[in-house]
């Protein structure tokens, strides 16, 4: 029994290795990135040849993971919450086919949007796909759930959705690990075609099996050691917690619970225990990190029957992550602060690093854009360069989802906007910009696409970028006229040249791709340090 200090993400990664995975498939995204990075750095993973290279996006990652599970081996697939939107097609249908080797799909949700564009709660996806879900309340539980989760997945025959949130993923605690298991042997399914070919006639059967399995999943939840019932004398209230909400509740009752508590960490909801707490207690308070998923299930549409408090009736804030204070307040406890934040304290928003190539790209682009007196619209995308939205640049008009800069600029151009400009990073381009570029090429859309190439995935900490060294040939392969694929080096001394290229290509009536290319200085520094060693 060894005790390690692990981030939640690291606990998940180590557990997956110890459980005998043969591959992790992922695209980076806060707060999930450290899982794959940990496996990439693990000597055991190296020795075993566990697959751990980054995938181009979450959909390719999940499909590859499913392929590995088809072949009988165990695979982990990780993403941030919005990544599951990208992979949703595979996700929903993997619930139809089921798996062969064990599969855990990890979603790292980000309530309060510490580094995300929304705070969607992916338990909704779990319910949507009707597969079992796990939601750990501690790093140790995260480890144990993953360690035994592959077996559970194999036993039930379905992928399992493991949901963590920022405070679990990015919080460290001591974790006791279990012995390393062997990998599964390759073992393709015997009657695989009945399950893995989702033609309507077969898919209808699969869906019926999934429906029948719901009872089995519920039984598994009812018997799960992760769902715990704590009885207590004061039955005026019963409290249901999910995931880490349990910790915030415990923090408020250091000497033991006053009311009965049902801690839920495995879904679908354990019916027996939920029935018990509802029958024994007058009213119910639901504490959950994220959307009022359980609360809505208990309440029903008309809210008749059980009296349920939580995020929907204002007992807790509807948005944002839970805190021990928010939970304390919901329990009627007094929260005391002795010192206020003094007025002199100013906000300190993040900014592009000094010397970053995106800065030089924006400096030049902004000057040309200004020449169009407000007519130009610049559709941005997601990455470090999104910080170009803030002063002093204020350079972009939108940032919605990865890849949307190209396609939104296309739609705006179709609507008559000129100049319609897209600014996208190299990793985002290969994640989901390439298909949009094909749409533009097919219609010869009047659009200017800036792929700000820093040769890495910088926003999430400098992971390899799938198209490094091949962006020009990718664009040419998609059909962009090579005369309108223009590479430049974003540096102050090149501003005049950059500006004239930008001007020319905006004026060109068709698809142009500009590639300002200079390596991210953070990645460069890291590489230099690593080579010194």
């Amino acid at each position, binding site marked *: 029994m060894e005790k390690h200090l692990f981030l939640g993400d690291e606990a998940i990664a180590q557990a997956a290795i110890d459980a005998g995975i043969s591959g992790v498939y992922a695209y980076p995204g806060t707060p999930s990135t450290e899982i794959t990075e940990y496996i990439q750095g693990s000597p055991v993973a190296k020795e075993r040849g566990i697959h751990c290279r980054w995938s181009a996006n979450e959909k390719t990652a999940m499909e590859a993971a499913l392929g590995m599970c088809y072949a009988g081996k165990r695979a982990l697939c990780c993403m941030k919450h919005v990544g599951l939107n990208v992979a949703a097609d595979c996700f929903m249908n993997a619930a139809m086919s089921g798996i062969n080797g064990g599969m855990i799909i990890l979603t790292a949700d980000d309530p309060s949007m*510490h580094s995300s564009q929304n705070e969607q709660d992916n338990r909704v996806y779990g319910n949507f796909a009707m597969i079992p879900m796990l939601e750990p309340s501690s790093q140790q539980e995260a480890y144990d759930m993953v360690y035994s989760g592959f077996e559970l997945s194999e036993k039930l025959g379905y992928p399992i959705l493991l949901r963590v949130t920022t405070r679990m993923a990015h*919080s*460290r605690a001591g974790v006791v690990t279990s012995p390393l298991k062997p990998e599964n042997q390759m073992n393709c399914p015997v009657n695989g075609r009945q399950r893995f070919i989702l033609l309507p006639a077969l898919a209808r059967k699969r869906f019926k099996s999934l429906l029948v399995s719901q009872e089995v999943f519920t039984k598994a939840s009812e018997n799960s050691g992760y769902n715990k019932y704590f009885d207590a004398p004061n039955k005026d209230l019963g409290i249901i917690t999910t995931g880490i909400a349990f910790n915030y509740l415990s923090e408020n009752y250091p000497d033991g619970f006053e009311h009965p508590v049902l801690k839920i960490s495995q879904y679908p909801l354990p019916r027996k225990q939920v029935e018990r707490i509802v029958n024994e207690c007058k009213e119910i308070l639901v504490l959950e990190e994220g959307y009022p998923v359980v609360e809505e299930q208990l309440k029903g549409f008309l809210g008749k029957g059980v009296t349920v408090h939580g995020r929907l009736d204002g007992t807790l804030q509807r948005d944002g992550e839970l*805190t021990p*204070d928010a939970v304390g307040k919901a329990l009627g406890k007094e929260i005391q*602060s002795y010192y206020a934040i003094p007025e002199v*304290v*100013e906000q300190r928003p993040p900014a592009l690093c000094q010397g970053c190539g995106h800065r030089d790209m924006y400096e030049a682009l902004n000057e040309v854009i200004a020449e169009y007196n407000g007519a130009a619209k610049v559709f941005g995308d997601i990455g470090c360069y999104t910080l170009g939205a803030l002063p002093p640049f204020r350079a972009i008009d939108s940032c919605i989802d990865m890849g949307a800069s190209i396609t939104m600029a296309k739609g705006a151009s179709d609507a008559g906007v000129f100049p319609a400009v897209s600014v996208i990073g190299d990793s985002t381009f290969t994640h989901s910009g390439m298909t949009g570029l094909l749409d533009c090429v097919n219609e010869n859309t009047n659009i200017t696409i800036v792929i700000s190439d820093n040769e890495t995935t910088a926003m999430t900490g400098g992971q390899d970028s799938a198209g490094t060294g091949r962006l020009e040939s990718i664009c040419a392969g998609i059909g962009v006229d090579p005369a309108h694929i223009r590479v430049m080096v974003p540096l102050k001394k090149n501003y005049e040249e950059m500006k004239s290229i930008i001007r020319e290509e905006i004026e060109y009536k068709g698809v142009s791709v500009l590639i300002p290319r200079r390596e991210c200085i953070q990645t460069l520094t890291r590489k230099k340090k690593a080579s010194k060693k």
Partner: protein
Amino acid sequence: MKTDIILSGVGGQGILSIAAVIGEAALKEGLYMKQAEVHGMSQRGGDVQSNLRLSDEPIASDLIPKGHADMIISLEPMESLRYLPYLKKEGWLVTNSRPFVNIPNYPEIEKVNAELDRLPHKVVLDVEEIAKEAGSIRAANIVMLGAATPFLGIDYDKIEAGIRHIFGRKGEDIVNMNLKALKAGYDLAQSLR
């Protein structure tokens, strides 16, 4: 024994290394610990903070409730003030005195200092200056850790061991530089107390 600490600073200043060293030391001491940090957006020159909780009993929440922190350790004076609602009435604030100015509206430092002056228990020191004297300005965060060590309830030699563990793979020179920085911070805080 139970110690709740808020670490604060600006992205890139190295508060997470402080947290990592304390974490290793706590583990060696056989203590329970939880440490929540924020990665991502906030690391590009934005404000960063970490909640660090140590105890000889299991710890429930990863986050520290308001009014519960035994101390705030900050690598930047204005950032130290941002988390005051979390400080206990009798809590200590230990901060670097040197402002990190990367925003146009950074307040006048006199105003920041006036706020620090109003607190009953604080240690304010120029860790960068001390780090320079100790050999490298890059170890300013470890000077700060040294200054905070007397308040942690963890033996000094366990913190030293934590440094060896965290910086070990970077080579003996880096380890020694950090040990020196730790000592310098520790000695100074002792003399100010």
